């Protein structure tokens, strides 16, 4: 009865000029090549945090590799007590410690120690973490049970505590490699857990099924399809882990169970300076700043990598 008032039922057709047809599903691949890594790079390039942390890391690496360019003092140069607690002077911009050692020179030479511990630990974590995590996640079953339990045992021991024990036992072999080994041996399980979880997700994807149907062997599927697609979170965790290792070395040295005094290390410097905190606080503050800046750079890099590599985080932005 109301049909006469409902005049909207007319058949409307939009003018074709205003709504032109486009070819169905035409290919629009132009511009740059795009995949996870190129996209992450394009994303990173736009972040100031990435550049700040990268420049700092490059600078620290440069200092560690060529300390001679930054200080004329050789690492083994003796400390002269007549300089004890001396203030800044020409050639010694940060002054002297109580033992009369040049603070700036010690910081410059300490960079190599911190960085090498960080890098050796990271390599250890990557080798152990990827092997354990990848095999456990991909093969599952008893392989997973055995490997994951081994990881859990190491995970249950705080790695600082474990390293304290290892370093006390090996007190006559204290050097950069031993301390890195002591830290790395107990720090890998978190990496292997992250990778295992990621592999559990990736191994059920259709492209893995598709590769199986083609006839690719299991191990090659792991290497070619599963690992490359699950490695991104490992990179993030490892970058932050590198910072953790540097902190761990400083902590151990500070506690007196790390590197011997003969090796220049920020941890040792901080430890020595705390005894003289009231008279000369700057000898504590300078190596602490160096340590914080280094650790902060790696953590910042890890954070921006996380943002750039996590597609979910990108989708919500």
């Amino acid at each position, binding site marked *: 009865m109301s049909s006469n008032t409902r005049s909207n039922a007319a058949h409307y057709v939009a003018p074709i000029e205003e709504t032109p047809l486009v070819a169905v599903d035409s290919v629009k691949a132009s511009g740059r090549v795009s995949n996870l890594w190129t996209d992450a790079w394009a994303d990173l390039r736009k972040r100031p945090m990435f550049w700040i942390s990268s420049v700092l890391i490059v600078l620290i690496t440069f200092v560690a590799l060529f300390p001679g360019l930054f200080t004329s003092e050789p690492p083994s140069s003796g400390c002269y007590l007549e300089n004890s607690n001396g203030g800044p002077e020409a050639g010694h911009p940060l002054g002297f410690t109580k033992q009369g050692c040049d603070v700036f020179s010690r910081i410059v030479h300490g960079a190599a120690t911190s960085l090498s511990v960080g890098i050796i630990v990271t390599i250890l974590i990557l080798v152990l973490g990827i092997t354990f995590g990848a095999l456990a996640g991909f093969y599952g079953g008893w392989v997973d049970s055995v490997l994951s339990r081994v990881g859990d045992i190491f995970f249950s021991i705080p790695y600082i505590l474990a390293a304290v024990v290892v370093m006390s036992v090996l007190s006559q072999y204290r050097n950069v490699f031993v301390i890195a080994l002591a830290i790395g041996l107990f720090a890998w399980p978190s990496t292997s857990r992250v990778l295992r979880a990621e592999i559990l997700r990736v191994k059920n994807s259709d492209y893995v*099924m598709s590769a199986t149907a083609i006839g690719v062997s299991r191990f090659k599927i792991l290497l070619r399809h599963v690992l490359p697609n699950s490695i991104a979170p490992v990179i993030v965790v490892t970058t932050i882990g590198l910072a953790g290792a540097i902190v761990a070395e400083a902590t151990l040295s500070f506690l007196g169970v790390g590197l011997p005094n003969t090796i220049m290390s920020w941890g040792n410097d901080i430890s020595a300076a705390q005894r003289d905190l009231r008279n000369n606080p700057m000898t504590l503050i300078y190596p602490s700043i160096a340590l914080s800046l280094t650790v902060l750079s790696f953590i910042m890099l890890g954070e921006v990598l996380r943002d750039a590599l996590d597609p979910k985080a990108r989708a919500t932005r």
Partner: protein
Amino acid sequence: MTDTNTTTASAAESGAERPILEIKDLQVGFQTQNGMVTAVDGVNLTLYRGQSLAIVGESGSGKSTTAHAIINLLPGTGRITRGQILLDGKDLTKVSKREMESIRGRQVGFVPQDPMSNLNPVWSVGFQVEEAIRANGVAKGKQAVRERAIQVLKQAGLQDAERRLKQYPHQFSGGMRQRVLIGIGLSADPQLLIADEPTSALDVTVQRVILDHLETLTRDLGTTLVFITHDLGLAAERAEQLVVMYKGRIVESGPSVEILQNPQHPYTKRLVAAAPSLASRRIEASASLDQAETDLTGDVAGDSLDLVATLEARHDTDSVAAAKESAIIVEDLTKVYKIRGSGDFTAVDKVSFQIPRGTTMALVGESGSGKSTVAKMLLKLEEPTSGEITIDGKRLNGLSSKDAFALRSRMQPVFQDPYGSLNPLMNIGNLIAEPMKVHKFGDRDSRRARVHELLDQVSLPTSLVTRYPNELSGGQRQRIAIARALALKPDIVVLDEAVSALDVLVQAQILRLLADLQAELDLTYLFITHDLAVVRVIADNVAVMQKGRIVETATTDEVFGNPTQQYTRDLLAAIPGANIPLGL
């Protein structure tokens, strides 16, 4: 309920009736890194009380955005940049957040798309229905709310509603969950109900029951219905008014039957030509009238989008169909899964079929029918519990690993999800070349030449070889998957729901590509699908599966013309658009 009816009647009697919903020149934009992107532009529509309207379009056409704009549920950075949305004369683009909250649910109900993710798994179903009732202020007091909840669920067609209230979403099937969502949407007797693809995630037979129920319910309650779908046949069957959207604009609108019978805009013509449900009807019509309608589309690209043309092309090349040996023989294939706690589950139960060389066999069934498990056993991705598979005269059981490896090159798969089945870190060239590398097929140069040849065969530019899958659309990825499957020149391709995730036009294109490739390369297809309408276009033989068993096997014409089993008849009847008189 009666209230609404009387108001409708009185409004109608008063002569100039005010529309319940009027959208004027609506424009919706999304803020992106590259500025504002317009998703919906210049949309006008008018809807009167008690009418039903369907918005049809492909993904990205702006159909859901339009619907979400009405109740201001635009995702992310989306906002209305121009125009008016008048609900019973009130401009919804100007109301405050608070007011909008009171309008949602009470005046405008909403049924979301995915019944699997739209109920909170940690709360009981009763809690969630009661929450909606309380939020809309329909009833007050514990007892009254509970009674209303039971009433709502009963109305939504759930048997045993009192007991069901205490259950959790995981104890409900997809269809039952969608009933709950419809119940929640209608719990406050809204004047307008927006249903956003309410049945896309459901099996066709369930879809039919749910939509029948929704139709009865909205008619009884006098609710105005806005229904969003990608299926033109479904839209026309379920709504009086049709709005076809394309790239954010309305290209055609009007009475459903008229648009379907007499589409004017070239885009609508394409849609009509490519919609499987309608194609199925047209094939039926042309078979009885013995005349084919292939000039429907009129535009140059149209022919490859017309499913009826695809069928005819297939028939033209199918001249030597008779007396071929079987490429695949499956005998008494059974797969039993051991389920912790609840014993065995027979996913595939004594399934037997044969596929003659160079033909297409469709394995049709709803979710859980075991059709994909059959495909996986065929591809040796799952081990059968018992039974025999013979491919090219070779039995799969007890095959040496070397022979099994060789057999893989003869039979290649294409999977459903175009976004998941290509390794995102391999470029297109390496993806297509991978099967050749694995099977040591040719040297580097000949493989590269073959990759170019394959890209050509699937109508993609060869410049794509250095590109990565994430730059391509779903349809293009599926072409890559097909090229990859064809790399080793296999005899058999197993297509596991290979076109189900695609938009209709793209789906039509891929179906045509598959038909052309079959004719050119004499391929044997096992085509696994839940969509009987597609089967009619692509398949020579059909096996219908239900709960792990094959209930009917016959030629496609027999299954469609003369189904012997009730289940097949139910499936056929559930193809949308069956009741639409076509003027073709």
